[in-house]
């Protein structure tokens, strides 16, 4: 019976811990967060309502059982009674839970209806998942970019100390305005991913070939972090979602800047087309790009993972057909994790990385690929 008391006190302790923790911090390590949208707050209260109903049910049922275990034990001299049915009681404990369920279903259904708001949004972002990064495209502006894990490999491999936002940081977060209805159209280029921002109570699967939608109206500016929630292959654990919510004026300024940067970058790319880079320059930039983008699958030593990701070392495609090599980097190969890099990398980066892979690890083809070669392939010249 000692153990019984122990169990009960542990339970009480846990419950009090649980309830004190949620009021203490906004990002709890124990509980759902309240989040920063009206919907996420509704979801949170619904969660707590369900939780406490469950706790009450558990206390009643286990209480009765532990009472019986204590009072009706044989060692206390209790003789067994001789009843084995009672229609009234049985009907009662079928009907009462049913009524409780209706009480749970009504607020749940109304929250669901609130989530299903089809009214016109203030802005739309197309979110595309691919192995293992997110791509954001602002439908109302000429801005689109990839958002890739920014945590250093060395941190993951325990060579450097881990930073505060380990695995929850990206190079370019999604930026949205506060107070506006932002619609997320969600889709995928390869397998199923799931775009999840806990603070918005938004989790929607990205299905290849189909679009899903979700929306959020964020109340407070801030940085909100989430992760991919559907197993999507090797680096499923390494494709976080980071969203920055800015005041509308600040957001407007930001998106204008981004549009200008995008234009400037295009001009720069055109300018680079006319330039030829030296082998050294190409190899240096190529190695950088390779380690940042390609090494996750093909490995830093170019050998890939046998049976999963092909080796680039001595690969027939790389040693022979230069056009096919550029093509696979530009367009990707359907049905494999090899995706199109024409949007993620500039033409000079593609040129550099192709040059690098054609000359590193004893591939030694001696081939130089320039940005204009990549451009020629992309333009079909």
């Amino acid at each position: 019976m000692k153990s019984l008391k122990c169990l009960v006190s542990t339970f009480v302790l846990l419950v009090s811990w649980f309830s004190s923790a949620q009021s203490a911090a906004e990002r709890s390590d124990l509980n759902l967060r309240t989040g920063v949208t009206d919907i996420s707050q509704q979801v949170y209260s619904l969660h707590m309502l369900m939780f406490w109903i469950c706790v009450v049910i558990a206390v009643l049922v286990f209480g009765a059982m532990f009472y019986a275990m204590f009072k009706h034990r044989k060692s206390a001299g209790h003789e067994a009674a001789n009843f084995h049915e009672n229609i009234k009681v049985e009907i009662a404990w079928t009907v009462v839970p049913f009524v409780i369920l209706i009480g749970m279903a009504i607020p749940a259904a109304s929250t669901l209806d609130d989530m299903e708001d089809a009214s016109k949004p203030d802005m739309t972002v197309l979110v595309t998942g691919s192995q293992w990064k997110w791509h954001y495209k602002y439908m109302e502006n000429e801005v689109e970019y990839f958002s890739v894990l920014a945590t250093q490999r060395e941190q993951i491999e325990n060579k450097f100390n881990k930073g505060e936002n380990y695995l929850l940081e990206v190079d370019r977060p999604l930026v949205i305005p506060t107070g506006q209805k932002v619609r997320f159209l969600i889709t995928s280029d390869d397998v199923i991913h799931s775009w999840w921002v806990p603070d918005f109570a938004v989790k929607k699967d990205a299905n290849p070939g189909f679009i899903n939608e979700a929306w959020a109206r964020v109340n407070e500016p801030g940085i909100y972090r989430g992760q991919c929630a559907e197993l999507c292959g090797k680096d499923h654990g390494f494709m976080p979602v980071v969203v920055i919510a800015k005041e509308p004026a600040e957001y407007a300024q930001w998106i204008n800047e981004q549009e200008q940067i995008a234009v400037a970058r295009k001009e720069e790319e055109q300018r680079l087309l006319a330039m030829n880079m030296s082998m050294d320059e190409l190899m240096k930039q190529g190695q950088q790009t390779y380690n940042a983008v390609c090494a996750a699958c093909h490995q830093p030593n170019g050998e890939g993972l046998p049976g999963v990701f092909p080796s680039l070392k001595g690969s027939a495609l790389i040693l022979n057909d230069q056009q096919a090599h550029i093509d696979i980097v530009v367009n990707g190969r359907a049905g494999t994790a090899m995706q199109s890099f024409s949007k993620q990398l500039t033409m000079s980066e593609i040129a550099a990385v192709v040059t690098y892979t054609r000359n590193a690890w004893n591939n030694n083809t001696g081939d130089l690929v320039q940005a204009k070669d990549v451009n020629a392939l992309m333009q079909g010249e």
Partner: protein
Amino acid sequence: MTTLTDDVKDPATDDASHDGHAHDDHSHDDHHHHIPKGISRWLLTTNHKDIGTLYLWFAFIMFLVGGAMAMVIRAELFQPGLQIVEPNFFNQMTTVHGLIMVFGAVMPAFTGLANWLVPMMIGAPDMALPRMNNWSFWILPFAFLILLSSLFMEGGGPSFGWTFYAPLSTTYSGDSTALFVFSVHIMGISSIMGAINVIVTIFNMRAPGMTLMKMPMFVWTWLITAFLLIAVMPVLAGVVTMVLTDKYFGTSFFDAAGGGDPVLFQHIFWFFGHPEVYIMILPAFGIISQIVPTFSRKKLFGYASMVYATASIALLSFVVWAHHMFTTGMPVEWEKFFMFATMLISVPTGVKVFNWVATMWRGSLTFEIPMLFAIAFIVLFTIGGLSGLMLAITPVDFQYHDTYFVVAHFHYVLVTGAVFSIMAAVYYWLPKWTGRMFDITLAKWHFWCSLISVNVLFFPMHFVGLAGMPRRIPDYALQFADFNKWISVGGFAFGLSQLIFLALLVKACRKRGEPVSDQVWDGAEGLEWEIPSPAPYHTFDTPPQIK
């Protein structure tokens, strides 16, 4: 059935005694009259008790193999960063751990218990189809050899999760997929044969007077489970076949490019998958309904309502599958339908829990090992059930879905639910099987170590899940680090605790311990407690009379 007709023709059966040693002269009839020795006894056996033993040992070995994989997972997750395995292998571990525990440990263990107990409980001499019984067991080891050997292929084994969502398992998977599909087919065939055998046995082999509503609850729950099995295992076979043809034969069931739809995969899979969940829990309900009355010295409360509750859980399980898929994007009306239907399941499940408590109420309770496991089951399964109720609420499920909250939920239901019930059953019937009491000290150690460690293992998963840790990730953010350390410690402790169980079982099989009476547990009622301990190789050649 052929063996039964053999019996009829054999004049030796006219003999009153069925003691094997008395009939050495009839050694040609190796089915009936003596216990054959050596390996061929186990390879060729058609005896339900032998096959039950084989199933149980197989399940236990698979439990240890799948558990070893869980240890790899927990070792990697002990602290943030990648230290022991690389992500691709980690995914293979989560996948194969799931497949082995579901198809290799829990399901065969229940089939083993059904083999041992169903004939003894309904007064039948054996299963109805003994030769098929032999087959349905002996193809299983091959299925798992194929699955496990795929881990050694170049590129490794299946790494797409035990739910093998397309297109990760089709277009984007390695060639081990073919082996995976083949082994799932064999497991499916085995389960279907086992289920057919159980149904035919229960329908046709009951002793005179054993009406359906007099059957022990374990038999009832298994009958309903068997119907679920033959209804959904073929659907699983169908969906893995589609995965195979999509991958290798150019069909596009799940490929948008060819007009298919990856979400269709999930619909078909979960149409199998949800009833599958009940396949793994209904027999557990039956076991608990046998054990609780024994140690309460009181009849099961609400027998009839138990039967109806089991049947309604089984029926409802066919209309709730899409609650696994709320985030795939479906019309709000569907979300509401599947939410309501799922919540409804808690009514019959609640009836069962209330009935167990009512059985204990004003009983005369003692707490032998099987009862300890049964009580742990009731408490911990109910916790899993309540978190399941929370998961049914669609808007909140958007937050819970694919996090460790889900992992906590289904491990409470499957480990402290199904697995604890299997352990309870083994402790309950082991003395009947071996004729001797198991080592009670070891059993107590096993129970208390398991109980504590399993909660250290799974309870904090609720917290990390709510705090936002997705499932199936090999590395995690720093805020989850403390709990994960505890979870891993609990995991290792739970794994080691099972070695106590192994020691106990080995000891029991070597016939150590005090001989037990026929009834074994004072308070035990049912046909299996009226036959001698240990249960003779052949029982109920003469049907018993049911009062």
